[in-house]
């Protein structure tokens, strides 16, 4: 129950922040009019009246909060259509990209941790180096490199907005790199710690091989910190999607958000932010529920 309350609080905070940031600076009328010469005084007056922009800030805030609560995300200032229309075609591609990237990233991390860690100091150094590199190299740059190599130079994959599986390969790989890198680092560390613990000795004493120890026992330990990283991964996916969608000319929420933020399209920005915040809240909730199944010690705590 308190979890739900804090979730609602996060959503309310995110929405309010959007409203304040976009309402307090700049000129909303210009945002509504869009590109080109500024509006004439007559047009300005009409827009101010139509959107109630001359009302006091708190009146506008309450009116806007009320429409949000009633499930009305409003009309896009810039694109002159309901926000739900605008977003409905863009949620799918972003979700596809994010889920594929997350699964790929986690998959690579588990494989690397299971089979490549603990192969001596030199191998560990190489692995650590690679994972640091994958986290620190800009996603944008990796994307451009992938595109240049595997679409323009060697035409294996399409570059332009293909929403089929072929179009998903390069962008999701690009986005999976930093995730795999960070996860590998954390998981490998945890595996090493676990394998120096007394229970590992016991397992080995029973005649288990290194691989068996890793797959059946210690790898599980490493999933715990990995799962708690989901918040970071989600941020990575959302932030990365913005860049990736631009480089690969994919449709999606990232591009919508960039265009909307640049043009102060408050209803669209709010909708995208609320969507991301909801995803954040829901995923963290799910992680909290899943953790006890991964780690029986947490289950015991809950039981008590």
């Amino acid at each position, binding site marked *: 129950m308190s979890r739900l309350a804090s979730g609602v609080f996060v959503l309310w905070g995110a929405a309010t922040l959007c409203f304040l940031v976009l309402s307090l600076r700049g000129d909303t009328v*210009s945002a509504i009019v869009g590109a080109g010469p500024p509006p004439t005084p007559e047009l300005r007056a009409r827009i101010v009246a139509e959107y109630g922009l001359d009302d006091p800030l708190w009146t506008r805030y309450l009116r806007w909060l009320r429409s949000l609560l009633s499930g009305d995300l409003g009309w896009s200032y810039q694109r002159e259509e309901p926000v739900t229309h605008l977003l409905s075609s863009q949620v799918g591609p972003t979700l596809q990209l994010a889920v594929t990237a997350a699964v790929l990233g986690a998959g690579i991390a588990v494989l690397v941790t299971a089979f490549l860690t603990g192969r001596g100091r030199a191998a560990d150094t190489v692995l650590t180096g690679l994972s640091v590199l994958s986290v620190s190299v800009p996603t944008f740059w990796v994307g451009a490199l992938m595109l240049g190599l595997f679409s323009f130079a060697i035409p294996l994959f399409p570059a332009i907005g293909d929403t089929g599986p072929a179009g998903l390969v390069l962008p999701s790989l690009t986005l999976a790199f930093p995730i795999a890198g960070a996860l590998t680092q954390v998981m490998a560390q945890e595996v090493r710690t676990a394998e120096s613990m007394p229970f590992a000795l016991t397992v080995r004493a029973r005649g288990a091989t290194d691989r068996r120890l890793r797959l059946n026992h210690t790898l599980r330990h490493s999933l715990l910190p990995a799962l708690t990283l989901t918040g970071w991964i989600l941020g990575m996916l959302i932030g990365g999607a913005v860049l990736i969608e631009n480089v690969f000319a994919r449709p999606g929420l990232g591009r919508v958000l960039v265009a909307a933020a640049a043009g102060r399209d408050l209803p669209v920005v709010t909708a995208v932010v609320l969507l991301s915040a909801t995803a954040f809240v829901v995923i963290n909730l799910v992680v909290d529920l899943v953790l006890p199944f991964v780690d029986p010690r947490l289950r015991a705590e809950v039981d008590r």
Partner: protein
Amino acid sequence: MSGGALLGLAGCAGVQRLNTAGPPRKGGTLRFAVATQADSWDPHAAATDITAVLLRPVFDSLVAYGADGTFRPWLATGWTVTPDGLAYTFRLREDVTFSDGEPFNAAAVRDNLAHIVDPATKSGFPLSLLGPLAKVDVTGEHTVVLRMSEPYSSLLYALSTTYLGFHSPRALREHRKELASGKFLAGTGPFTLESVVPNQEAVFRRRPGYRWPSQGTLNRGEAYLDGYRVSFLPEDQTRVGAVGSGQVDVADEMPSARLSTLRKQAGLRIEQNPVPGSPYSYYLNVSRPPFDDPAVRRAVQASIDLDAIVKGVFRGEYQRAWSVLTPKTQGYAADLAGTWGYSPETAARLLDEAGYSGRDGDGYRVRGGVRLRAEFPFAADYSTADRRTFDVALQDSLRKAGIEVVLSAVDSAEFASRVIAGEYDVKSVAWASADPAVLRELFHSQRFLAKGGSNQGRVRDPQLDAWLDAARATLDPQERNALYSKVQHRVIEQAYVVPAYTSPRSLALAERVRGVRYEVSGTPALADLWLADS
């Protein structure tokens, strides 16, 4: 008319290519990559250039530019103007229909002009094109009279743009809310808009039975292409890569830095088209210090080594500008070439005379303890890498002259509020337009930004106003051009503006794209294009 000349030139090139390549082939979908997304799919509410470009084949106009520089019939078979210039009577074609089956007639013209004027449409630029339009009279099923409150020499030009194209009356009645998003469009053109995915693509299809192209269009019937698919690719290198690897047939706005490489690539050709209008220019805000002083403004003009910067930044691809109109624009004052330019000695003398004789610790000039400093905000979304590089070069030149330029990137809404309030010293803009009346928008005292105009430098100059008003009223093209020439000379002489460079529209085209003729804007005329077997 420069636009007409452009069409004529490009048209000839098109004929040659057709002759060597055999008869046009029907079929195929052209894949076209563009850099910016349309802000609105309703031409009556649009401000972005790309809207007009992409919708040109969907919306026909009453008149068109002819190859010989005059206006030619299109949806109007002919027209007469009263000697006082206050009434234009258009006779319309009687066989034209909209793609939803509605007939095109005088009532449709009236309803469309009413739609632009209706405040609910929130029209900015298209509304300004109508000028002093006072009344539209339907005098017959296919006769319509446009009445002006004062003579307006730009009316025919305005009517030839996509912005004043025609929606079907049914679209205006039943689908008004769906025009801007492109969900429902019905025009009279050779193509129809099939679908739009925001930020991704727009798909256009050939309209069967089309047979009313403008005079001067080579293809007299239906379009050759089955359709065209437009991808919005904001990243320069994605556009370059896409056309280079054959994933699109035509890519718009090739960056100057990549042109030399692209020219060498097999299977591709680069075609460049001069764009009429105003070149990329720096406008100095004359309504506040430091640029309220003509000496300081002239010092700015003399401090920038434009030849060297243009050559360095654009590798010889673009030309420096001499006037605030581009050479391809009707009325361009060619005699301005060589009359002003880089002279650090002159700049130093002017600044000394203006009282900025001291220097501070950073080497900037000071007067009465105040540094010579200019605010230069820009809207990051509407800028390009080329322009940013150029701006920094300008900043560097002025630093050497002792003038500090503070460049700041702001978002478009923030930018708009600063611009309306006049809180800037330098503002840069390039403006594509085939009509030299763009000078009125840029310099008339009635066209301040806060009033919906584009007087970037907040210039109030009675002499300019008089010439601009006279040019708007006269129907004699020679007199009009003479007046616009005077305007161009005066804005340089008064240093209201520093024109910087003219860039052609650079397109990369795949070998199989044939029949290329260009619109005034420098983009290909899609109705004439065809795709060879590849």
